[in-house]
């Protein structure tokens, strides 16, 4: 009896600690995963345009140190040709952007202007549509031209979209450092002939 009591007590303590350790594992494993993966998770989170800020028709919104306004969103059906598939609609989006923070190169890095439909499909700008000359330029070129604070830049992009989905498309603006937040303009495209 004397010899067994301390041994039994030691056993009980050991068993209790084993149980505690197992329960602690439930807490520690997720914690370890968070520590190891949090960098990759942060990169994933800011890599995609996930959270939209709706901008009503005619309105302006701030993004990346500038105030963005959709000047025009025009669409016209295109005949099938050498580089144009059948059933295509050409869409041109034009923005007037008033620069507030002159560090545009950094703020607008990874600038992506796209058209989005209700199901999450995105259309990137195309190069196959020849556009009339204008002082409006592509986003990357506009950023590279070094605008100063207070300047208004005009940005223009063309897109090739299917005719049946064109009316539901909305223009979006996403900038690298601002992701996952991006702007979505509620103004629908207007048909021009």
């Amino acid at each position, binding site marked *: 009896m004397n010899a067994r009591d301390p041994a039994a007590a030691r056993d009980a303590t050991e068993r209790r600690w084993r149980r505690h350790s197992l329960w602690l594992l439930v807490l520690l494993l997720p914690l370890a995963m968070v520590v190891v993966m949090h960098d990759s998770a942060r990169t994933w989170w800011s890599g995609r345009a996930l959270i939209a800020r709706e901008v009503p028709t005619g309105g302006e919104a701030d993004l990346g140190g500038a105030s963005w306004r959709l000047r025009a969103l025009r669409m016209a059906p295109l005949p099938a040709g050498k580089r144009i*598939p059948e059933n295509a609609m050409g869409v041109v989006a034009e923005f007037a952007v008033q620069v507030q923070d002159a560090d545009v190169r950094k703020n607008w890095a990874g600038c992506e202007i796209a058209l989005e439909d209700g199901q999450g*499909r995105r259309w*990137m700008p*195309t190069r196959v549509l020849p556009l009339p000359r204008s002082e409006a330029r592509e986003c990357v070129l506009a950023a590279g031209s070094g605008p100063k604070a207070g300047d208004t830049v005009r940005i223009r992009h063309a897109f090739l979209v299917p005719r049946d989905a064109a009316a539901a498309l909305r223009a979006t603006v996403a900038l690298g450092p601002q992701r996952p937040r991006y702007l979505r303009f509620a103004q629908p495209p207007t048909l021009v002939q």
Partner: protein
Amino acid sequence: MAAAVLFAMQRSTPRYQDLTGPIPAYGNIGKAASTRLFDIEVERVEFARQLVGKRFGGETRHESAGVWAIVTARMVARSRSVNVTHAVWEGPTGLRYELSDRPEFLPDLPPHTLEPGLPQRGRFVFEIRPDQILGATLLVSEGPFPRLDSEAHVALNALPTAADGLPPIAEAFDLQQAGGRP
């Protein structure tokens, strides 16, 4: 016993390349292959000894040590605009023929820019050894090393054959001809 199990496990562990390799999406001529970014349906495969195209006003003729294989396919992006730049003609014995770099600046050649909802036709041109014509597979992906991303594997079966069992090989194939863009 434990040694035997460990040995079996070591031998059967897939290599790094297989673990992180492309994820195939299967199809064949007439049945579209559906990858993560685009769908591709091969319409026809043609063979020729010479490739003809127009360039800067003059005509260019390309001859090959093997045979020219021209694949015409219909492709459409699924959820966002995508550039299809890479294709491989995998012969029946596993030989991999990359896209020929010789026919440049001719229409309908990669990179093919695909838009969601807008199917379009594009061509892939290869130089292959004549004995690699039958039983081949076309591998198409967005970029050259599709790691852990889907790659279309289109089995080029059921090619129309002539009397000798091989598909007809034309003398010349004109890349300008209709049947490229719709």
